[in-house]
């Protein structure tokens, strides 16, 4: 039998180096080109806030912001993230002070088990960036790529509306 055998320590030659910005900080990683952005964030950079729920872009719990767009990091090959500006849930609370979306999720019961929460909050943040005062219908549509099994979404909608209200007060 001459078939090749894949060993546990693969050839270092296939690894490549690339850089991108995460939560305002420039980071350089050595990765396989087709490594998923999700794995790179979680395993190499220790940013475990992004979660894997389905691995096929359906549940949205791995959502991060990449150059302002909301992406499922389980579907993004790391090559695509080269030189990109990435924001994860860890980048939302600046200097330990919660973002008003995070505050509103706490207050309104938008987080139950918490596993969808990082992705949901980033999706909501993306939505509020595009539409600072969304209608209920726009919130429902805006979050429809992020699945939550606990809440029935109602309290998540309320949290997003509450955050929008707080933002409009903060920036009249």
């Amino acid at each position, binding site marked *: *039998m001459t*078939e*090749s*055998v*894949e*060993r*546990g320590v*693969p050839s270092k030659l296939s690894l490549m180096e690339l850089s991108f910005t995460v939560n305002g900080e420039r980071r350089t990683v050595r990765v396989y080109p087709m490594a998923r952005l999700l794995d790179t964030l*979680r395993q190499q950079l220790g*940013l*475990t*806030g*992004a*979660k*894997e*729920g*389905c*691995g*096929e872009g*359906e*549940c949205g*719990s791995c959502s991060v912001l990449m150059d302002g767009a909301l992406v499922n990091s389980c579907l993004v090959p790391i090559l695509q993230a080269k030189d990109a500006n990435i924001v*994860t*849930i*860890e980048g*939302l*609370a600046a200097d330990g002070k*919660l973002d008003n979306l*995070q505050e509103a*999720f*706490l*207050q309104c*019961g938008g*987080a*139950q*088990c*918490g*596993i*969808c*929460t*990082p992705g949901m*909050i980033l999706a909501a943040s993306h939505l509020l960036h595009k539409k600072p005062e969304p209608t209920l219908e726009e*919130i*429902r*549509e805006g*979050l*429809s*790529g*992020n*699945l*939550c*099994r*606990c*809440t*029935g*979404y*109602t*309290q*998540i*909608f309320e949290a997003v509306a509450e955050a929008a209200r707080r933002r409009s007060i903060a920036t009249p």
Partner: protein
Amino acid sequence: MQNDRVVGVSVPRKEGRDKVTGQAQYVDDMTLPGMFYGAAVRSQIPRGQIRKITFGPGIAWDEFVIVSAKDIPGKNCIALIADDQPCLAHEAVNHPEEPILLLAHSDRHLLPKAVAAVSIEYEPLPTVFTVEESEGQSEIIWGTDNTFKTYLMEKGDVDGVWEKADYIVEGEYRTGAQEQLYIENNGMVAAFDPQTGVTVWGSLQCPYYVHKALMALCNLPADKVRVVQMETGGAFGGKEEYPSMIAAHAVLLAIKSGRPVKIIYDRMEDMAATTKRHPSRTRHRTAVSKDGKILGGEIEFTIDGGAYTTLSPVVLSRGTIHAGGAYYWPCVRVSAKAVATNAPPHGAFRGFGAPQSLFALERHMDRIAQVVGLSPVEIRRRNFLKPGQTTTTEQIVRDPIDLNRLLDRALELSDYPAKRELFAKQNSAGPSRKGMGIAAFLHGAGFTGSGERNLSSVVGVEGCADGRVRVLVSSTEFGQGTKTVLCQIAAETLGLPYDDVEIAQADTNQVPNSGPTVASRTVMVVGKLVQSAALGIRQTLAGAGLLGESYSPEEFRAACWKQVSARGPFLSWARYEAPSDVFWDDEKYRGEAYAAFAWAVYVAEVTVDLTTYSASVDDFVALQEVGKVLHPVLARGQIAGGIAQGIGYTLYEKVVWQNGRMENGQMTNYTMPTSSDLPPIRVFFEELGNAHGAFGAKGIGELPMDGPAPAIVNAVEDALKVRFDSIPLLPEDIFEALTSVKGARVREPQPVGGVR
């Protein structure tokens, strides 16, 4: 003592900040030095003898740790109720995806190829996939009769009732399997140390279930097994029993490799291999008087348990007791059984048998209404249980519950009468039809019958030297708010601010066995014990002369410090004692089935699109009496979330079976409701209180799973005037019924034999 109440107020979740900042640590976020990754090689066939295992080419097998049944130090079973489920199949397999071998490697990316490279030859055996095939017993796949458990529950003289009946109404109702679909897949990390034993960290509901299973598997004493719950990303019953299996696998690999081992399921493995809600079939035969009173009836309740016993007897029990619902039955006979099929074992899922038998009953009530010529509202009014009457287990209703008042309020909140009238007029034309449906029901809180007595749960409350108070329970948080509410109860009891109370991680080395986190028992039963233990702290401090009748938080802190300085660790324990008025006869299945029932009336408004044949829910009103609401935001979240799962159960979620295997094990083809699929879910409470629960609380978690399916299907029938007796109800089912000549028009004459 402060005057500000803690109970009844929506205080912040204890672990909320960690959850919204991404800091909460779930099992897959955990890494140990030198850790290997594990995977299972699973059966590809539903039933057969294992003949030969071959490790194929292309894999560096010398790098892998390989575990088979022969490596198990203790008993090859997942100890729970019966010991029939092996941890690893040895000679035979009884369902698809049954684990046979385990592999571990330092590089997780090499595992899928290695798993695929193991080929197993089987000698296939005949299979059983449906309840009917199992009952037929042409092939015996479990025990002597394919039956895990039967119950016969009898009240009054059922055989004598038929001749008094003006109508005899029959019906058969079915429910499908449902995947819990927690967003966090199952996972465990295990480590082994010859001195201290095994430790597992995982996503789980019941630390002491895992503890029990690992003791038997590893042949280790209790103090050599440690189980730690990590933050758990949803469970819904789906992490009640199967985590013991995954923990067992991780532990076996850790013992053999000498390394910590992590096993994380991907979605497909989680869907295909782990438990789901039991599919069911319920048959009703009911004697009814001409004015719509139920005179008595027979109910046959059958569930498909899959290949091994697991929790089926208990699921069956709850389904059996709930089969008569919130109505008065002068006499009734419920015959129930759980049968074996060659599918992965079905298991715990929110509601635990009750959603199945209550779907049947609440559909059947609408059917009775049609036969008698009454409205769905009126048939319920005439049969509701009243205080002082007895349930099907002859438990006296002690709650001052007025179900008619609950129904009135739900009708008003949903604008039912006006809408039903309006829809009846509008439904003759146009591209869609609208309807209204009702479900009225009850849900028992806590373990059934003598269950709580047998559990004999223990909780601890610790007064720390710095004056903080720590709650010690094995009850777990997985979204419901366990940590928050138990801390509220302790704070309220001690008259302390909520922030002064914390809760220990559910770690069997640190916390006593307060029982499993299931059965809507945590707030009511465990909460009451937390209250007792906290009271013990207060009494001890008062008895030592360190604390007066009333005190400030500062005085409490000072007293705690003095107590700990003088006497060392300051702990107060409370153990469950059955209330004197709770009696249960396990033989006859008679007595006080539950210490408390929650009561509810739900109303669904639906539209059926006649172009796409899809049904959608436009409005959902959920009114319930759940005792005292201890945390309004969490309580509403429990109800709304349960209803969303119930809507999925009814209209979206279908497990497609192929030879006992789930074929649609992905989120793309097993579809749960998204934010754009769900209606406004409007939640309302009545609060009568409950003598047995902490601060008057009853159980709440499972209740909302019971009502959506019947309310929605009743509404679809109201819209289309076509009968549907099974769920899930997908567009293709509606299409089939509307276009097929077989579609049973409900207003047409009933077939002979169905109705007398």
